């Protein structure tokens, strides 16, 4: 009997890992205004899960591979003249999910697998799931540290990055792939629908607390870990869904930070963040 044989212990480790991962990657999701893309990815991986189930291979491997294809399609499509990133994302979201539904409707006996996929079950993670999540976390953090300054420049000033000779399409793909891998690693714990909570909530909360990029990453990671562990704890204490508890903690933390920032008068005036700029930024990804 090792420490990891306990369901609750495994769930806590998994929660802490996805908390760190979601928080850190979330900083770029927020800075590049990609929550919608992240939401779309969770649906875009769906056909991959179904196909993997049909073929009898690992569901998350299937989701991961298919998700990368979706990312590639979005990058290629959004570079076409007259198209924009949000349109490509919308098509990937609906098209991916629809393809999954079609595949499911053509088959029987999927319902059990799919419930876990849509809402997740962190208390069901196996030791091998843990290892996969840990490896993903290490790889993602190393890649983000290695490409940090280039990812920052592309995120902040796309034209400037291209003018400096950076391969913007490759860097776009790298960031979207990082988000995709994070989504796939988080889905066993939170499920396809709730994963976005951990990739948006902690980073958005950190953004309310600080303006400084170097502090955003540790604060977002800390908020992610605390929300994830609190969610697991509440879930085991009162026997409620763990993924939903984690998502609720993410929402509640953001709400509290928001109220605190209003009280402290730190909320920036709306005039400083015109909607047109926001839309333009998202379109430019």
């Amino acid at each position, binding site marked *: 009997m090792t420490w990891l044989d306990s369901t609750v212990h495994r769930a806590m480790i998994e929660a802490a890992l996805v908390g760190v991962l979601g928080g850190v990657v979330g900083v770029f999701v927020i800075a590049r205004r990609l929550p919608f893309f992240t939401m779309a990815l969770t649906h875009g991986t769906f056909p991959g899960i179904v196909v993997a189930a049909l073929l009898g291979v690992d569901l998350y491997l299937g989701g991961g591979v298919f998700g990368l294809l979706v990312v590639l399609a979005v990058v290629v499509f959004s570079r076409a003249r007259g198209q924009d990133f949000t349109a490509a994302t919308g098509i990937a979201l609906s098209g991916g999910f629809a393809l999954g539904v079609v595949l499911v409707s053509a088959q029987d006996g999927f319902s059990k697998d799919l419930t876990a996929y849509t809402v997740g079950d962190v208390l069901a993670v196996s030791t091998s799931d843990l290892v996969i999540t840990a490896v993903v976390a290490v790889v993602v953090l190393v890649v983000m540290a*290695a490409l940090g*300054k280039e990812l920052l*420049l592309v995120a*902040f000033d796309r*034209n400037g990055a291209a003018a400096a000779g950076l391969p913007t399409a490759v860097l776009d793909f790298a960031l979207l792939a990082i988000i995709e891998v994070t989504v796939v690693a988080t889905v066993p714990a939170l499920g396809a629908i709730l994963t976005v909570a951990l990739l948006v909530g902690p980073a958005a909360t950190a953004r309310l607390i600080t303006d400084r990029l170097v502090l955003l990453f540790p604060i977002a990671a800390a908020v992610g870990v605390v929300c994830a562990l609190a969610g697991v704890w509440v879930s085991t204490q009162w026997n409620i869904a763990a993924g939903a508890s984690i998502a609720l903690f993410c929402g509640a933390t953001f709400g509290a930070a928001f109220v605190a920032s209003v009280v402290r008068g730190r909320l*920036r005036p709306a005039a400083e*963040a015109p909607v047109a*700029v926001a839309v333009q930024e998202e379109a430019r990804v």
Partner: protein
Amino acid sequence: MTQQQDRTAALVLEQASVAYGHVPVLEELHGTVRSGEAVALIGPNGAGKSTLIKAVLGLVPTVRGRIEVLGVTPAQARRDVAYVPQADTLDPDFPVSVEQVVMMGRYRKIGWLRRPSAADRAHAAEALERVGLSDRAKNRFGTLSGGQRQRVLLARAIAAQPRLLLLDEPFNGVDAVSQHALLEAIALLKQQGAAVVVSTHDLAIAHLACDEVCLLNRHQFGFGPTDAVLTPERLRATYGGHALELRGDRVIVTQT
């Protein structure tokens, strides 16, 4: 003029035509900008000023003729070329500090997988000093005024130690203090031997800051010394019906 002929050509346009896909944007551009000189790109919105800047950066293809930058192709020259975008095209909410933005100018020289050295930090600090914003280094970029943000972006370009500097409408909506700071920093870069290309709507600034003018509206309506090119006739030709004559020798552009 003899002094200018001694200087090396930083940018050469030879009957150059630039196109997005099959749509020609600029046709038959011809002219030379030498090191230590500044040229103003002047023309109405949609004239192709930004497109010419992108072509000089090698981001838009030259379909006919030739664009030569520092003796090589635009793509090969990027290491020695710095680009200053319009400040208001950047997200003011982005969580990045002024000194981080200036350091971005060093990224190309730092290279992949490396972190800024003490020398890089010194270059960035000096560049920020040159635009008079050292005291704002720790502030978030978006908290600065439009003019100050434009100066930070110029500092970023200065930090890159360019031999050719490209500025896209740097004076739009910029207050007098910042305009003065921008002009001074540009003048110093010229003195140090950099060539400068600046697109602007402001004819007065073209007179103040630039030795030469390129009048653009899809085609070239003139390229040469500022006083010789900025004539009422040529401005009317460039701006079409949107140029009005004032007191015989002055022209006002009614629609940019």
